[in-house]
């Protein structure tokens, strides 16, 4: 196995740690998309 270290003696822990990075990235994308939607400029509708 190409891994070593305190937390990497167990493949399951290593896999969980690996996946948690992507989970963090996905959550970031979700929250950032909500943030961008919330900060869209309000378009003014011209009143004739």
């Amino acid at each position, binding site marked *: 196995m190409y891994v070593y270290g305190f937390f990497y003696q167990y493949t399951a822990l290593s896999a969980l740690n690996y996946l948690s990075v992507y989970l963090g990235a996905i*959550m970031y994308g979700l929250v950032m998309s909500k943030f961008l939607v919330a900060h869209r400029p309000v378009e003014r509708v011209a009143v004739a």
Partner: protein
Amino acid sequence: MKLSIKFHPLLFQASLAAGGVALMAFNYLHFAIPHHKGPITLDDISWGIMSPSQVALYAPMVLVMLAFTLLNLLLTVYFLYRLVKWLREPGAYTAFRSNAQGNQNAGIFAIVGSLSMTVNVFWAPFGFFVPQMSRYMQAMMLPSLVIFGLLLTALIFLEVTFGRTWFAPGIDRTKFNFVWLLDAFAFGLVALTGSGIVAMASSHLIVDIAARATLFTLGVGSIILLYKVGYLTFNHVKAGQLPAHPVMPAFFLIVPMACLFGLAAYRIENYLAPAAGGSGLASTLITASYVLAIVWGLGAIYVIRDYFRSYFVKSPFAPPQWGFV
């Protein structure tokens, strides 16, 4: 299309969270791939001798780290620019500071927390992509110590200034929520920065100063954290109901905090270990903190399970949602 972003200190949570993801990717690669002494760099990865599955495993991780490192640095620069403009607006800071109802002014600590995170991003993920940095790491320790000192000073100043507003007459502290923990979070991040210097510097003087200041940061941060978690938990149990949907994700703030305090204490205990006779306390501290993080995280998911099931996906943005990252 230009976004209309009104400045608020909680904006810094976006750069803080980006730094967190970059650091997670860095930590994975640092521990998973054999490398020379010191933090792993891009030069340490021998792509040519890796199997296709290993390349498929590590290459996306490097790309994720690159994206979030850039995001952290760019957002930090942009938010600092906006912060300076905000501080120059007459009365803006004073009005924000005095708004202590529902701990609304606790967001100020996201600034210190985010800047501490950026220092760590600079040392680790940024250093990964600029391997020349590792050669000059020792030359950066003194400037790092100065930045650490400035962050700690700013944090103490803000804690005293804003702490007064939370305990002022007329403030209903029973309405406070877990966002109130942002100052303890900032203490954890500043302690991580200080302990990073302790772990990396070779100058005894720099290590000694950083270790003492980190111990102080950890001590004050732990007292604040324990008091606030106890108080908030008691109040939530007493009220017998969950807080409003927008602030629910703040429950998750405990998870990174447990890891930050545990890791900083682990590094400091390693520094003190010769004097303590190698008590094994370091391993106990870091294991206990990670167990607490996992237990609290799972508990929080259980407590707010309905939030995830029926609210989060379609919900509008709320700053505490950064707590998930």
